[in-house]
Structures are given as structure tokens and as C-alpha cells.
């Protein structure tokens, strides 16, 4: 019942000085809002990252050309050949999907439209590795690849850029670098995934591209899709072994290719985001502490103002503890109310920002609970001294206080 009395008296004290209470908690409100918004921003960024990774379906390793060094002499980039990809393909040890590609910009014409667009030569499996689905028609198959057939699959945005519709362009011919290619399929919209824009590209079979469009057998890189729970270290060792044999690299010599684990990057990025978030949240947290000093200041004023009330309460039998708890509860309540307003404010700002910018919105519940708990602790810490001051007042003198 005493605790309830503390709450009631704290609320009525806050309410009777509503403007002052608001100004006092302003720093707490802003501090909590900043902490919440920053933490939310961090987890929204991670959510975006997760969605990107999910787009890749299974985990993807990327083999790209590297430099061959013999002693101090650098011989420039050693290309990866289509044959390298087939050597990997032939390996039966692992359940992986080998997807090499070559991509260049070429002129694309359809009726009157004439655009310069990214053309990608790849194997049919590329669509599976990337998780791209067709919306109209079909993707090309291995026979069309080996036959160097002039067929093309369009990214979802391409028909519009050629000033036509998917229905009108399907099964028609487009001119790529002056040669006709039959449009056999159009992909679903994928959206941009970081540095790639799959909707903007045109896809031809790898061998068709190599021979007819690009005139090279060197691939840009080889994507290797592995299962999510695959042993990546072992797979990387197999890739290394196969490619070293392909390239005739003797023992002790360096690799002339690079193998990257994309998910390592995302882990790094996630870590960096985490550190950054913690840093900014920490800085914002300092303003909470500064707010606590403001609360302490106003509580000291409140104790002085209410000296007679404190004297009366003591005359009626309030113990040291009862007076302490009354003022500490008031300080905590002040901070917690500020914290709640701050959480609401920070969440709203982030939500608005996210919906304008089309980001995913994520607000961890633990951040909300955590920041309100933290503001309660600020109230407790900075409420102790004023409360002690109140509890130590001499009742006889306090009652005389004017």
C-alpha cells in the first residue's frame, strides 16, 4: 500500500508541474528516441542484408581471375577459361552448382528501340543458382547452349526499355550487336540486389555468347552454389586442387585465381553494422545520462519546495525508507515516462523513414525493453541523492519551513 501511495503521490506531483516535468524529461526523451532509432536502423540494415542473402538462395562461392606471380615478376591477370568451369563440373565429390558467366554491354534493337544493355552469357544453371524464375516462356537448356543457338532470356525490365510489352516481344527476334536472337523467356522481377540489377540484363547461353557475341573463352568469374550447411572449407580446398591442376601450377607456387565466400562478406558487414550501431547507441546513451542529471536537479528543487509536506509526512509516521521510496519512485517514473515517449518517438521516426525509403523495418523488442529499463536505472541512480536529502530532513524544522 505504501508503494501504491508512492506511485500516486509521484504521479500527482508530476502532473501538477506538467510543463516542468516535460522539460526535465526532454533530454531523456531525445536520448531514448536516438538510441531506439539507431538500434532500429542497425537491425533494419541487417534485415535488408538477410533478404539479399536469401535472394541468392544457397550459399555462393565466387572464383575470379587472379594474378600469377613468379618471383617478383607479375604476369598480369590469368583468365579463367570455360574449360576450368567444366573441370569443376565434372567433379563428383560435391553437390555443387557450377555457374560461369561472361558479361559485356552490347547494342540491342527491337523495332525502333535501340539501347545499350548488359548481355550475360551463362549456363542454364545460373538461373537456379541465383533463384531467378521465368514469368513468360522458358529459359534456355543445355542443348541450346552446346548448339550455340541464338536465343535470349530477358530481365523483367527489358521489354519496357525496348518500348514494348512482354507479350509483344516474346517469341520475336531482337537484334543484339546486329544479329537476331529469339526471345524465349522473360524473368520475374527480382529487384536490385546490391551491386547487380538482374532485371536490366539479357541472358544468352554461355557458349553462344562466347563464340558469337564476345569472341572469348575467358569467363568473368565462376559462381559456385553450395548447400547452406555444406563444409565450405573442404569445398574451397577441392576448387583449389582442381584449378591448380587445370592451370598446371607446381607445388609451392601461388594460386592464379581467387576464391571468395560471399557470406563472409555479409558476416563482416553485419559485424561492422553491429559495432557502428553500438557506438552510436552508446553516444546517444550519454544524453540519457545527461538527462538524468537534469532529473536530479529538478528532484532537488522538488524536495526543497515540498519541505513542509515531507515534515508533515514524517509527523504522521513516515519512516526514512517511506520518504526515500516516494522520491525515488518519482524520479524513476519521470525517467520511465520520458523513456516511453522516447521509444514511441524513435520507433515512429524510423518507421516513417523506412517507409519513405522503402527499407525493411525492424525494431527488436529487446531494444525497447532495454532502453526503458536503462532510463529507469538512470532515474534510480540520479534519484537516490535527492531522496536521501528528503529522508534526512528534520521533521520539526521542516514543519516550520515557509
Amino acid at each position, binding site marked *: *500500500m*505504501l508503494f*501504491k*501511495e508512492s506511485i500516486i503521490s509521484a504521479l*500527482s506531483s508530476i502532473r*501538477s508541474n506538467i510543463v516542468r516535468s516535460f522539460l526535465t524529461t526532454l533530454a531523456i526523451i531525445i536520448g531514448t528516441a536516438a538510441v531506439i532509432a539507431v538500434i532500429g536502423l542497425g537491425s533494419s540494415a541487417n534485415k535488408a542484408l538477410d533478404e539479399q542473402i536469401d535472394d541468392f538462395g544457397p550459399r555462393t562461392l565466387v572464383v575470379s581471375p587472379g594474378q600469377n606471380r613468379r618471383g617478383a615478376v607479375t604476369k598480369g591477370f590469368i583468365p579463367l577459361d570455360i574449360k576450368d568451369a567444366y573441370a569443376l563440373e565434372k567433379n563428383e565429390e560435391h553437390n555443387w552448382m557450377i555457374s560461369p558467366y561472361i558479361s559485356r554491354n552490347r547494342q540491342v534493337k527491337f523495332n525502333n528501340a535501340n539501347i545499350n544493355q548488359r548481355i550475360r552469357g551463362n549456363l542454364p544453371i545460373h538461373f537456379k543458382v541465383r533463384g531467378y524464375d521465368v514469368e513468360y516462356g522458358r529459359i534456355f537448356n543445355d542443348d541450346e547452349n552446346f548448339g550455340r543457338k541464338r536465343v535470349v532470356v530477358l530481365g523483367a525490365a527489358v521489354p519496357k526499355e525496348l518500348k514494348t510489352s512482354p507479350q509483344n516481344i516474346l517469341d520475336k527476334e531482337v537484334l543484339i550487336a546486329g544479329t537476331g536472337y529469339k526471345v524465349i523467356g522473360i524473368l520475374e522481377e527480382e529487384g536490385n540486389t546490391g551491386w547487380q540489377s538482374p532485371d536490366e540484363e539479357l541472358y544468352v547461353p554461355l557458349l553462344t555468347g562466347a563464340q558469337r557475341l564476345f569472341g572469348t573463352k575467358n569467363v568473368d568469374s565462376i559462381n559456385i552454389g553450395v548447400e547452406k550447411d555444406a563444409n565450405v572449407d573442404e569445398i574451397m580446398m577441392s576448387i583449389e586442387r582442381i584449378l591448380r591442376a587445370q592451370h598446371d601450377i607446381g607445388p609451392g607456387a601461388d594460386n592464379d585465381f581467387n576464391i571468395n565466400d560471399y557470406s563472409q562478406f555479409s558476416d563482416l558487414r553485419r559485424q561492422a553494422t553491429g559495432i557502428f550501431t553500438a557506438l552510436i547507441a552508446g553516444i546517444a546513451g550519454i544524453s540519457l545520462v545527461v538527462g538524468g542529471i537534469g532529473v536530479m536537479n529538478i528532484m532537488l528543487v522538488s524536495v526543497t519546495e515540498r519541505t*513542509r*509536506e515531507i515534515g*508533515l*509526512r*514524517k*509527523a*504522521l*509516521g*513516515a*519512516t*526514512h*525508507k*517511506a520518504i526515500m521510496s516516494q522520491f525515488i519512485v518519482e524520479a524513476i517514473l519521470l525517467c520511465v515516462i520520458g523513456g516511453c515517449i522516447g521509444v514511441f518517438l524513435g520507433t515512429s521516426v524510423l518507421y516513417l523513414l523506412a517507409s519513405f525509403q522503402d527499407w525493411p523495418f525492424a525494431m527488436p523488442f529487446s531494444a525497447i525493453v532495454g532502453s526503458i529499463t536503462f532510463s529507469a536505472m538512470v532515474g534510480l541512480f540520479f534519484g537516490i541523492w535527492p531522496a536521501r536529502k528528503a529522508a534526512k530532513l*528534520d*521533521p*520539526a524544522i521542516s*514543519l*516550520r519551513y515557509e
Partner: protein
Amino acid sequence: MIISTQNLKRSFQVGSEKVEALKGINLSVEKSEFLSIMGPSGSGKTTLMNIIGCLDTPTEGTYHLNNNLVNDLSDDELARIRNKEIGFVFQSFHLLAKNSALNNVMLPLKYAGVREDNAITMAKNVLDKVGLTNRINHSPSELSGGQQQRVAIARALVNKPSIIFADEPTGNLDSQTGDDVMNLFKELNEQGQTIILITHEEDIARQSKRIINIKDGLIESDYKI
């Protein structure tokens, strides 16, 4: 004997000067007495009340309340005695402005740890007793001075204290409402309540049963009416 003091002294340090407010008070009060303490301003009446009301401690002398020595008790023990044994009524009422009459009266019960439903019943009973049955939800600003002082008296009564101290209870009231308050005190005294009243006014003091005159921190006269 409820109150018994021997050679009670109280001095205050004001800057470099020492003010002797009480210079040796010997006072005994029996149960159910109705006693007035009179004296000019600054004579030490409030100081004496604070000590025998356990709000303050003497610098010298001994004080027994209900045959227990009070001198050496801790702050929290004194708080408990004030809560259970003593009821205060002040000149300026000292009600909590934002609380209803009922809440004001319940305050000592809250500090005594009484359960809320019991506390409400007890507070309503004493408010009945002082004639404020229909005013329990009014806040002090919605009550007249006389009614506010009745709330204060109800608050002093609610824990069934051994003694009620009233420091100038009629000082802020007109003579009519002052008389009403005095009649309430007389009624309570007839029911056995011990009351110690502090006043400047002769005709208020005359309504009690014993008058003590204090001057310069000493008892000048002590007589029954």
C-alpha cells in the same frame, strides 16, 4: 501517567549564539486529561510540543512516554511512535492539497501498513465522527477552514493515538468555527481522549481542564479549572 518529563531542556545554535528555548520543564500528564499550554510568542510552546510529540529530542533531561524512555530511540522508532501514539493538529491544517479528505485521513494508516480496504473503513468512520460524512471526496480547496481543520482532526484520530497535540488549532479560524472545533475536542475528551492544546487565547484555554503557562522556556503556573 502518559507523559512525564524531568528537567527538559532544548537549545538551538543560531549562528554563534545559543538560544535556550526550554530551560527545564517538569511536566506530568495523566490519561484523559485536557490540557492547555499558554504563553507569549517565542516562549517555547511549540518546542515543547515537538519534544513530547517525538518530532524533536531534548538536549538535556529525560522524557517518558507511556513509561518508556524516549530520549535514546532511533529516528524510525520515533516515526513509529508518532504514527501509533500521537496525533497532530496544526494551525495551518497541513493537508495534502491534491488529495481528497479521505486520502488525507488515510495517510497515517498507510504508514502504519494497514490494508487498503480496512484503512478506507477506518478513515470513513473518523470522518463520520467529525461530521464530514458528505465531504470525503472533497479536496482541501473545496472545503472551508473549519472543515479542513476537522479533516486534520480526523487524521489525528484515525490511528487511535494516546495523545492528540493541537498547536493553535483555532488560530486560522473565525470565532464561530473555532468554537465548533473546541466543542469537537471537548466531545473527544469526554470519550477519554487525552488532548494537549497550545493557544494564545485565554477563553480557548478556559474550555480545557488544566492550564499551564510558559514563559521564557519555564513553567510559570500550572492549575486545574
